[in-house]
């Protein structure tokens, strides 16, 4: 009501459709809330179990989404190859853990090996992403937007072919250092150790990333470059190195996600990057592309929605998983095109 009055006093005419839109949005949010509460009331244990599973997936979506959002934030490129970089990371992780280190069972050595593998795969992701920027995207920076976009699609296929060549056309199963059964129960809700590892590692990486972006010189250079490249140059910022560094950060996050994914799921597939990449990209858009916090919230939200839809008493089930996720994306974008935390307008000239 107050907003109506305010609008009138500014002399702006109110369109009927605006009122309808707001009402519809309100009803939608209330409807979703009611559905969540209904599920919770019907079967609390089941609700929390699927909620945790959703959070687990959501954390991985968030890590991958950060790669999309970092790159988009700095050069406004949708890096379509990012999901496939993640996929290559899962294959490297599986081979390193199982074939080279011989670690396929739980235990202390397995855990130490996991840390080592994570570092290696993060460096791998960072290096490949920097290479893609250096050899392909950098040269297209002043080209029409479509050129780097198509290049990214091309790279995506190249990565997939490499994955297919190394991993084979069908999925491969691997033993992992996480025992899917081991864990403990709280009030009947099963909490796996792997879930705690995924959540802890994700939280640590997010803290580290936030620290780098907000507090360090490199982060300052990144934020300046994102807003105005020439302006940053005039401050003495090495813009090329800064963009390179941003790709490295995004690649490292994809690498970390790849290790967590591979060790919890135990499967490698050459198409894994396509589906997960698309969902993570959706998460980035949902949260407001270019916004780091938005990517994390978007990732967790999609994970939880998916979890509830697939496993809660009134969920539509796995067959409708993608439909639900993308319907929600479309609805959010219709009402809030800039995403949940995105900026309404860009100041770019």
């Amino acid at each position, binding site marked *: 009501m107050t907003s109506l009055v305010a609008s009138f006093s500014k002399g702006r005419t109110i369109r009927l459709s605006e009122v309808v839109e707001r009402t519809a949005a309100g009803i939608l949010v209330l409807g979703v809330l009611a559905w969540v509460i209904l599920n919770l009331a019907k079967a609390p244990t089941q609700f929390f179990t699927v909620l945790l599973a959703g959070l687990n997936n959501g954390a991985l979506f968030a890590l991958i989404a950060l790669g999309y959002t970092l790159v988009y934030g700095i050069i406004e490129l949708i890096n379509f190859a990012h999901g496939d970089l993640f996929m290559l990371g899962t294959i490297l992780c599986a081979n390193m853990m199982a074939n080279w280190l011989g670690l396929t069972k739980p235990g202390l050595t397995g855990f130490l090996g996991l840390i080592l593998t994570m570092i290696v795969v993060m460096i791998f992701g960072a290096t490949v992403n920097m290479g893609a920027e250096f050899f392909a995207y950098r040269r297209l920076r002043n080209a029409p937007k479509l050129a780097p976009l198509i290049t990214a699609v091309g790279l995506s296929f190249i990565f997939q072919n490499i994955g297919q060549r190394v991993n084979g056309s069908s999925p491969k199963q691997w033993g992992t250092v996480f025992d899917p059964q081991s864990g403990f129960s709280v009030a009947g809700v099963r909490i796996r150790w792997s879930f705690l590892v995924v959540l802890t590692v994700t939280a640590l990486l997010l803290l580290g990333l936030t620290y780098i972006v907000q507090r360090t*010189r490199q982060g*300052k*250079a990144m*934020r*300046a470059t994102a*807003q*105005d490249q*020439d*302006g*940053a*140059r*005039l*401050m*003495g*910022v*090495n*813009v*090329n190195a800064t963009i390179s560094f941003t790709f490295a950060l995004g690649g490292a996050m994809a690498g970390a996600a790849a290790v967590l994914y591979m060790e919890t799921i135990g499967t490698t597939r050459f198409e894994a990057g396509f589906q997960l990449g698309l969902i993570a990209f959706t998460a980035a858009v949902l949260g407001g592309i270019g916004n780091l916090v938005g990517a994390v919230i978007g990732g967790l939200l999609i994970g939880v929605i998916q979890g509830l839809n697939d496993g809660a008493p009134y969920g539509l089930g796995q067959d409708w998983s993608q439909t639900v996720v993308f319907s929600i994306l479309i609805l959010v974008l219709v009402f809030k095109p800039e995403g949940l935390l995105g900026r309404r307008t860009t*100041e770019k000239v």
Partner: protein
Amino acid sequence: MTEATSSTSQRGKQGVQPLLDLTNLSVNYGNIAAVQSINLQVHPGEIVTLIGSNGAGKSTTLRTISGLLRPRAGEVVFEGRKISGMPGHDVVKAGICHSPEGRRIFQRMTVGENLDLGAFLRKDATQVAADRENVLTLFPVLRERLQQKAGTMSGGEQQMLAVGRAMLGNPKLLLLDEPSMGLAPVLVDLIFDTIEKIRDQGVTVLLVEQNALAALRIADYAYVLESGHLTLEGPAAELLSDESLTKAYLGG
């Protein structure tokens, strides 16, 4: 020369090397020639002004000095070293700071963060703190707004931020592109006073201005640019005192 110059200008003395030397500099945008074969020198301790009407090529000249544009021909020499062709951040490292046209402040960062970025390449933390204090004393309004998002400040305040930020780079040569644009008359006076103070602190200034009369009053030497060509140069006081010139070129 006249009382207009309190500087230690070395111009005209034999064997003195200019701080900045543009030789036969030409700059194109695609096929459009924006600057054509200009020769311009800035000597240590001077305020040199580059004036001319809209589209004359003044900003293009500054952007080329800063390494944002590559010359089509000719070169930019700073302290005896060729800097044309260097990336922009190396030009800053060499000692040239540029307060660009239209301010180009980082709108989504705070005033304080913008000032920090001005000192991005400096390692001497105590001296940076002292220079920052100096800037905040020159522009007290910035001190009150340190936590404010720069994009929400008024145009004039943003202009002061842009100038203060460039000063924080501790440059040997300061390039100022229309620092008085959009300012109220009292602030225009403040900006020009500040530029003289900056010069007195030992910083050499190359000043681009629409406000030609005010620029000539504080400058030691002036160049007039017309459609990419230099058509006139001389000690600023001479250009000021020559009435036919001020009429023809400066509309004064």
